[in-house]
């Protein structure tokens, strides 16, 4: 079956306008184009850069193995500069003008929602790789057949964190808590959920105060002095990256960590860990990405390869992006092609071996099309490599049970 060029273009144009997914009129060994709208500039440029790097490693491996029947994956990466409207435009452009059959959406949360709406209309198979906001997949109104999330979720991290923190709180009698978190949706939701689960596991905990700096606020002096006035026994923070570094540096000057235990869910990220000059000992941290947790060869190999190519270490966004490529690649091979419905059917419920999995595997849960079973754990900081020790892996059975309750509570069954 061969179509003349103008007719093919007209059909493709008609298909695109009416919103149907593009049918596979491509010749064999034509690359499979995958669009990657992401953020490559501004404060969170590292999000896009580390995602793209990891995708590139996995895509190169996939292609070296022969691709999909000889068809290699080709990534089309564009910078939305963090503007959701631009993310939407890029997504549409990739789908219609660039002929991308799939999207690996590496936007942050707000851009992710914008792209989500675009692909709801176009029916393009999309894997969101960086959006951690639970409602993206937990809320049934947001769910449709062609959107999946391959990223950790706020609710999972909060349950795990609350559980770990409650154990420490019990052991060391930490009852007075305060929180410091950035004043935007992620900061507010994550902190609220952490506190909820901390109290669930250890009801005698009291949060005596909170402070909410602006995202990317350059100076935390007033927040730190407020914290020290409250004299808490423990402090929780979901500040991340540059903000966390600044906060820790400034707080050390005030001697804040001498008097309060510090629980920073986003500390365990190499970019952050390497930038803090005098990392306080004994800070409790969740795991964003650590090359030795899980302590399996596959994880260490991934970090070594990434470091060899890019002279830096992977981030949380990297392992998520890599996992997305592996899932997509396997789904395409299992489906024997790139027909979106078929690939989506294979993705839902898929379980693959993964060096980032809690038990050596990760699963794309069919019911809400989101990733589960990835390694979550908390440990304490030490001043030198590997920076975190005593990692306590979290129990997914507990997480599933409490997550289900949480969804019921929100009416999201």
């Amino acid at each position, binding site marked *: 079956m061969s179509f003349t060029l103008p007719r093919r273009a007209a059909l493709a144009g008609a298909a695109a306008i009416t919103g149907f997914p593009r049918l596979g009129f491509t010749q064999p060994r034509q690359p499979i184009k995958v669009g990657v709208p992401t953020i490559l500039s501004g404060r969170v440029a590292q999000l896009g850069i580390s995602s793209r790097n990891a995708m590139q490693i996995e895509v190169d491996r996939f292609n070296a193995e022969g691709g999909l029947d000889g068809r290699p994956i080709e990534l089309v990466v564009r910078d939305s500069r963090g503007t959701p409207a631009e993310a939407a435009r890029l997504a549409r452009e990739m789908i219609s003008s660039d002929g991308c059959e799939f999207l690996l959406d590496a936007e942050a949360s707000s851009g992710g929602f914008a792209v989500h709406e675009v692909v709801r209309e176009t029916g393009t198979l999309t894997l969101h790789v960086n959006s951690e906001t639970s409602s993206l997949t937990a809320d049934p109104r947001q769910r449709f057949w062609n959107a999946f999330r391959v990223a950790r979720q706020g609710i999972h991290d909060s349950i795990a964190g609350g559980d770990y923190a409650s154990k420490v709180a019990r052991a060391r009698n930490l009852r007075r808590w305060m929180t410091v978190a950035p004043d935007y949706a992620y900061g507010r939701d994550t902190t609220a959920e952490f506190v909820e689960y901390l109290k669930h596991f250890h009801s005698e905990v009291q949060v005596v105060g909170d402070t909410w700096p602006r995202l990317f606020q350059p100076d935390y002096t007033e927040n730190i002095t407020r914290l020290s006035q409250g004299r808490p026994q423990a402090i929780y923070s979901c500040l991340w990256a540059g903000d966390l570094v600044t906060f820790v540096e400034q707080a050390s000057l005030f*001697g804040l960590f001498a008097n309060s235990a510090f629980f920073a869910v986003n500390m365990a990220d190499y970019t952050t860990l390497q930038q803090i000059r005098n990392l306080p000992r004994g800070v409790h941290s969740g795991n964003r990405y650590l090359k030795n947790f899980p302590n399996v060869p596959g994880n260490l190999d991934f970090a070594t390869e990434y470091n060899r190519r890019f002279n830096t270490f992977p981030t949380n966004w990297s392992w998520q992006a890599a996992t997305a490529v592996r899932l997509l690649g396997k789904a395409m091979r299992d489906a024997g092609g790139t027909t979106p419905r078929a690939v989506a059917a294979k993705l839902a419920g898929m379980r693959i071996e993964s060096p980032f999995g809690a038990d050596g595997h990760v699963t794309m849960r069919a019911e809400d099309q989101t990733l589960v079973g990835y390694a979550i754990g908390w440990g304490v900081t030490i001043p030198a490599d590997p920076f975190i020790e005593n990692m306590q892996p979290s129990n997914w059975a507990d997480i599933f049970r409490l997550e289900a309750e949480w969804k019921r509570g929100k009416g999201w069954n």
Partner: protein
Amino acid sequence: MELTELAECVTSLSCLVTQSAAGLTIGMLLFLVASGLTLIFGVLGLVNFAHGSFYMMGAYFALAAYGVTESFAAAVLAGIVGAALLGLAFERFLLSRIYGQDVLMQLLVCYGIILILDDVVKIIWGADFRSMGVPDSLRQPPFIIGGGVVPYFYAILFAITAVIAAVLAFGMGRTRFGRIVRAAAINPGMVGALGINTTLVYASVFAIGAGLAGAAGALSAPIRSVVAGAGVSILIESFIVTVIGGMGSIGGALAASLILGFTRSFGSIGFPLFVEGAMFIIMALVLILRPSGLGGRRGS
């Protein structure tokens, strides 16, 4: 609103000392940046929308110098001189072409500069945030004054910024150069007619203004992250300061900076969720009630 907490704080010596010290330090750093901005406006009639970029470049130059020399003094010097030279280059090659043109032109040229510098910084230093870290020699335990905590490094910062402010005041008030600069602000034509090289005056004023912003960037590099786009929030705050203090008035800038510093530090206790909004409301009120600001000339 947590006014009871605020009242408790004001009546407790330790809280008062801690928050006041914080307010002073925040205010003085802000003053460094804002004084440069208001000086440039007062003398050159230019609203330097790119001022935040000189703050950012000061921080990056300091970071680079510290990486090589491990000396804080060298880092600060590099920040000041580097930002001043950069400012000089921009003034001579780009900004001097739009003197006297309307504010729209100034905005656009500065916007272009911001876009370019943000990318240049990304290309040279990478997109990641960087942190200089407080130098070990300055990492001493905090002072405890009346039960309040005053970090050692903050005391150093305050001392340095106070010295710079004093030098600025002396330079503007007592030296010949300062008198020329103040005259040029009022009547550039006359200054030129008197045989003084106004081009030189303009260039040096811009360089000084940029250097002040660079100094603030370099001084805060140890405690804040250095990243492309770091100049934006400092720019907005220094505009608020300049409006409240009066455009062109250095004394007004000092008063306004301290007001803002204290609003931040005590505000985070009394009305924590509204500190941002409070600053914009003060700015709006000043513009509505007394547009020339605290120290500005009426009707300017």
